[in-house]
């Protein structure tokens, strides 16, 4: 591939801009960055607009914007499950996350595992939740690097040996440095630039590309023609009956998992008020619209006759074919910067888990707030370096497989976190064993299918292939319920709960009537 100097210049200019912003962010809404609440949650001070950009930038990652259209390009309608997934996640967010925000605010919880420890009083259950979160987040960070790698490659920046990875290493070292100094404020500030750029790119792409290709009707027809001509048939534009179960369970399971990912919790807990969380449950679906439109660009790539060696190159290749150099550079910068926001938030979330639920709980219970913050800063560096070494050292497919496994794993924390926010039905020991059973069942099924997300089995004459994460969750819930009954019958005592029912409710702010003005009214 030839080096594209125009695209590269635009790319470097925008990357430079966000680097400056990232370091400048330390001074934004200045707080004492030597405290974990300030470094790792931005002081819990973000309003509706900042949170909208931060959470949106955090959940709709660069990898998502590359992988979803690549999947639609490859298999058609089955890949579109990302849309019902990112619709259904929000009613769940609306019902669940305000309760988590309330209880976390009242008890100064920073991570989902902090909540579980407070609610169930069990250090080992909290450790299980924290380890699951860290394990699921690490490959996700690594995949953000894949997003960057793809666009850097698309601009023709190539080399051999260490030189090939040098641009990626530089970009990541910059990211690591400003996350270290500015904490969550850095991705919050960069998210403004990132999302504005992504929206511009997507609107331009959705307006310009289909009209160049003869309209959406023609795009869908061209895609259907290619799927039909493949031997064996590769997919379809309209989902077939065999795909119904997979589609619905992938959408539901992923939606249930989305907001219990540590980076999603970090984004939500950084909100200033519970109303910010509720409003964003109604406003964030704007990003799902964006994702749906991006997904359809997978069909546009088919209609445009794009052929690529690796599916993840579909989007960059389409942009290169359809846009002038300068705008392609802008689009690539948007994707690369899009990788920085989630990578930063994820590394902060993983660092918070390590610090609060492993370091402070097991290694140094007496740690002060300042010690916690400095441990978390170091941990965020270690996590990012780990991701970098991983992506350079091992085949990309490993990171993709581990991220798929991560989704299954995170779903196994659903019973402890989400049911715990409403009722304390389950015994803490039962939850721990249920989690273990779900983790083993999910991992085993996934490995047996070569990391394919679904597992087919036959009931009567019907073959269904639900999402493995949901199979494992079922195992998890059955074990949890059975053991809860058994342990309670055997009068094995439950650990203490530090929360009370009122901690979960949003109390309206008391109306303060200044007494001095009473007489004048």
């Amino acid at each position, binding site marked *: 591939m030839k080096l594209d100097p125009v695209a590269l210049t635009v790319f470097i200019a925008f990357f430079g801009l966000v680097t400056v912003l990232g370091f400048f962010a330390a001074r934004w809404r200045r707080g004492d960055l030597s405290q974990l609440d300030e470094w790792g949650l931005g002081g819990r001070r973000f309003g509706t607009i900042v949170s909208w950009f931060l959470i949106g930038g955090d959940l709709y990652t660069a990898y998502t914007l590359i992988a979803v259209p690549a999947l639609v390009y490859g298999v058609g*309608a089955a890949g*579109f499950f990302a*849309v*019902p997934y990112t*619709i*259904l996640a*929000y*009613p769940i967010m*609306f*019902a669940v996350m305000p309760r988590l925000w309330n209880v976390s605010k009242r008890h100064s919880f920073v991570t989902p595992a902090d909540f579980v420890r407070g609610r169930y009083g069990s250090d080992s259950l909290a450790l299980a939740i924290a380890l699951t979160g860290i394990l699921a987040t690490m490959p996700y960070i690594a995949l953000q690097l894949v997003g960057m790698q793809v666009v850097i490659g698309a601009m023709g920046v190539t080399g051999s040996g260490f030189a090939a990875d040098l641009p990626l290493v530089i970009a990541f070292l910059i990211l690591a440095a400003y996350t270290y100094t500015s904490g969550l404020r850095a991705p919050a500030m960069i998210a403004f630039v990132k999302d504005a750029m992504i929206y511009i790119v997507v609107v331009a792409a959705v307006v310009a590309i289909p009209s160049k290709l003869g*309209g*959406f*009707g*023609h*795009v*869908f027809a061209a895609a259907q023609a290619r799927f039909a001509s493949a031997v064996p048939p590769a997919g379809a*534009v*309209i*989902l*077939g*009956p065999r*795909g*119904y179960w997979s*589609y*619905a369970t992938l*959408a*539901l399971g992923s939606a249930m998992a989305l907001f219990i990912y540590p980076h999603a919790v970090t984004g939500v807990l950084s909100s200033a008020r519970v*109303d910010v969380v*509720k*409003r964003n*449950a*109604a*406003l964030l*679906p*704007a990003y*799902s*619209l964006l994702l*749906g439109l991006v997904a*359809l660009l997978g069909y546009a790539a088919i209609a445009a006759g794009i052929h690529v060696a690796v599916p993840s190159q579909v989007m960059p290749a389409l942009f290169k074919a359809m846009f002038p150099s300068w705008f392609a550079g802008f689009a690539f910068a948007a994707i690369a910067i899009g990788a920085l926001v989630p990578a930063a938030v994820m590394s902060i979330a993983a660092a918070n888990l390590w610090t609060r639920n492993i370091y402070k709980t097991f290694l140094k219970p007496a740690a002060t707030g300042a010690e916690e913050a400095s441990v978390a800063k170091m941990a965020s560096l270690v996590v990012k370096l780990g991701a970098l070494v991983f992506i350079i050292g091992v085949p990309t497919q490993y990171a993709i497989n581990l991220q798929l496994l991560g989704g299954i794993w995170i779903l196994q924390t659903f019973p402890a976190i989400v049911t715990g926010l409403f009722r304390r039905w389950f015994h803490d020991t039962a939850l721990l064993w249920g989690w273990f059973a779900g983790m083993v069942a999910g991992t085993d099924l996934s490995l047996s299918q070569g990391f394919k997300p679904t597992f087919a089995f036959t009931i009567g004459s019907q073959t269904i292939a639900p999402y493995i994460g949901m199979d494992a969750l079922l195992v998890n819930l059955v074990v949890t319920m059975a053991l809860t009954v058994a342990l309670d019958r055997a009068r094995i005592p439950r650990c203490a709960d530090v929360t009370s029912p009122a901690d979960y409710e949003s109390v309206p702010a008391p109306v303060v009537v200044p007494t001095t003005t009473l007489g004048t009214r």
Partner: protein
Amino acid sequence: MQPRSQGKRTHWWLLILPFAGLLFPGFYAHAEPALFGFPFFYWYQFGWLLVSSALTAFVYLRSR
């Protein structure tokens, strides 16, 4: 306060609708009727995106 908090809970059931609308793909996995070149399968789901967001906003405003 009591009647109002009862009212809160009834609105919450509206949040079930997107699940009912989207979790049975057999209902909407069809090409026709198409709209602006979009097969039914696609515009139906985009439609739910808007409806779901509106329902969430409605429940938020009524439960405030």
